[in-house]
């Protein structure tokens, strides 16, 4: 019973973790660790100050990353952040019903997204705008979800990027099944193997479906990377409401590796994700990655974080901004000059302008869209309801409705 987790175990008579107003000593420690370095086992290649630190285990997975590649990662992060901010503004201006910000999670998503190969498949949650970008899904294609015109207009098969899933945890099982299929199709076992990456949050880890995903993937050796973005919050609930232990350790109980990576470090996330995907494509899946990051904005545009968290927490995390550390690193090593940064700035302004232009001009879907694609094969019943309704609408002499 002297298991490594004992330290998280409250002392006899200690106040209950969840029922006492005062946190236990463990919670305080956990809390402090959370807002400091993220734990002893955090994999980090770029410090918040932009220093490249060595990591014998993972350096080799980014040994081929050139200055140009790093500039590319920087560009990705700047552009997705810009698109995110623009969409947020569009919501404020009534152009979108709601927006789910990715602010602060750019490195986690770009690092993971760029680690994926064309043949890989991704199953996102609802905040993966950065991963979408890497899969070739334009920000414009995300807007319908939040404007209420559709549920995502990209082609999940062509982009190898599944639709967003809003029901917490559901997509983890769907991804496990897809990855099983990759194995059944004989696409696993060598360097060109296929793999799947599924994205979910810290709160999602409590859902039964996520556990069952762990069980299925491990029992079937599915080439599946569980990519958990621990952004410290599930709406208003801190990670302590979901677990006693760092989440990457969950994998211990199932018999596959779990790693905690600095999710604000794009290079480290790229390296760890490449390693994990390689493990999977070679048949050694699944793997759990906990990307330790922070949700710098509200949960959604309808959320009010001031009700449940202090602003100094945000300030502490701003010092670990995912984009800033890359910028500093590029400058320090003279891998980028002002002209470069200006060009990215210009490109992002351009992107934002196009996004806005597209958004304000999005047409409303026609009423009969409601009845389309309920089934792949004909449904007399749905058709009858459609016909009756369209006839009813026609009854209004071109107006009223």
């Amino acid at each position: 019973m002297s298991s490594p987790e004992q330290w998280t175990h409250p002392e006899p008579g200690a106040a209950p973790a969840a029922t006492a107003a005062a946190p236990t000593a463990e919670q305080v420690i956990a809390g402090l660790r959370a807002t400091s370095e993220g734990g002893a086992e955090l994999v980090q290649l770029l410090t918040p100050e932009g220093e490249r630190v060595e990591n014998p285990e993972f350096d080799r997975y980014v040994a081929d990353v050139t200055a140009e590649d790093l500039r590319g990662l920087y560009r990705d992060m700047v552009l997705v952040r810009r698109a995110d901010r623009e969409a947020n503004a569009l919501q404020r201006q009534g152009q979108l019903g709601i927006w789910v910000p990715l602010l602060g999670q750019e490195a986690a998503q770009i690092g993971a997204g760029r680690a994926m190969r064309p043949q890989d498949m991704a199953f996102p949650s609802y905040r993966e705008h950065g991963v979408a970008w890497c899969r070739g899904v334009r920000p414009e294609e995300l807007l319908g979800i939040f404007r209420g015109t559709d549920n995502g207009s990209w082609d999940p098969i062509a982009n190898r990027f599944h639709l967003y899933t809003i029901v917490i945890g559901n997509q983890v099982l769907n991804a496990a099944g897809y990855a099983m299929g990759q194995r059944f199709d004989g696409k696993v076992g060598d360097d060109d193997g296929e793999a799947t990456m599924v994205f979910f949050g810290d709160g999602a880890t409590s859902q039964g479906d996520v556990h069952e995903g762990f069980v299925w993937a491990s029992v079937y050796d599915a080439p599946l990377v569980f990519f958990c973005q621990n952004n410290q919050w599930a709406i208003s609930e801190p990670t302590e409401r979901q677990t006693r232990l760092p989440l990457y350790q969950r994998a211990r109980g199932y018999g596959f590796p779990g790693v905690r990576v600095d999710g604000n470090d794009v290079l480290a996330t790229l390296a760890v994700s490449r390693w994990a995907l390689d493990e999977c494509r070679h048949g050694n899946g699944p793997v759990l990655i906990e990307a330790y990051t922070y949700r710098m904005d509200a949960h959604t545009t309808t959320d009010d974080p001031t009700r449940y968290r202090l602003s100094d927490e945000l300030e502490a995390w701003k010092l670990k901004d995912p984009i800033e550390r890359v910028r500093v690193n590029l400058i320090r090593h003279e891998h980028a000059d002002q002209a470069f940064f200006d060009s990215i700035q210009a490109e992002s302004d351009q992107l934002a302008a196009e996004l806005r232009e597209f958004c304000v001009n999005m047409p409303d879907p026609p009423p009969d869209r409601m009845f389309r694609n309920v089934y792949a094969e004909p449904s007399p019943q749905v058709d009858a309801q459609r016909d009756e309704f369209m006839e009813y609408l026609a009854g209004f002499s071109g107006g009223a409705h």
Partner: protein
Amino acid sequence: MATPVLNKTSAAASATQTTTLAKSLNLGLRAAMEADPKVLIMGEDVGKLGGVFRITDGLQKDFGEHRVLDTPLAESGIIGTAVGLAIRGFRPVCEIQFDGFIFPAFDQIVSQVAKLHYRSQGKVKLPMVIRVPFGGGIGAVEHHSESPESYFAHTAGLRVVSCSNAVDAYWMIQQAIRCDDPVLFFEPKRRYYEKGQLDVDAEPYPLFASRVLRRGDAATLVAYGPMVKTCLDAAAAAAEDGTSLEVIDLRTLSPLDLDPVFESVRRTGRLVVVSEAPRESSLSGEIAARVQQECFYSLEAPVLRVTGFDTPYPPSKLEEEFLPDLDRVLHAVDRSLAW
């Protein structure tokens, strides 16, 4: 032209206050927690945040983390542990954040919550309430506008109610919490900000009773939750055209209290059932089935239904078309009258 009872309530009013449906629920929960220390509130974000709709606003602050629990993020866990707490003697009030997220808990609700009293031959009571903000009309994304009430009305052992106005909200939530049976409590989220005159000293209307909200003789409209206002509006509009419609708020979806409906239909001869939920195998079908049997010789037209369509809930730009509205209700009334 409200019902006598509503009038009586307002009449008896000592100190009435204007509240919204949402605020009434908050006041009702507070009153229930003050009345009984065994009442617990559990759910996602119900503590500091006060729930995404603020229905539990301020309760954790005033009653403590022992009584208002921010739970881990899993609905089966919320309901499954509430069952254990109820067995232990607590009276848990669980919040499901949105209608579309009750399904992970469906197994616990159908297999355990609904059956434990029966299985134990009455030796174990399960007094728990499951609050569900339901229905559309708020421009939300997927899974946030569902109307799953028929699933639960079809499940023996559960009680299912829905409030339609601020006054009922205050009383019904307290009555549901006092009930010794598990109660699914459906809250019309699009009506959270509708106002009402609440008199906390008034005599509450019984929980498991439907209620005539407006008298009329040309035809009867039956609805519950969010569609009650739609029907009242339709009746008001029809009145201007000289058509007097009776409006009945079901209030209790299981067990159904249809006697007032039968009585009404025997007078009007015509019935239109209005519900947002898809039509197939739904509560609206049950009402039509019961009425055509009980009022066979009184019906001058078949029972008509105005419902959501048998499609998934559409992207919100289309919900105005999906949801029954005043026009569709009156259109059905016209069809009924013209039969």
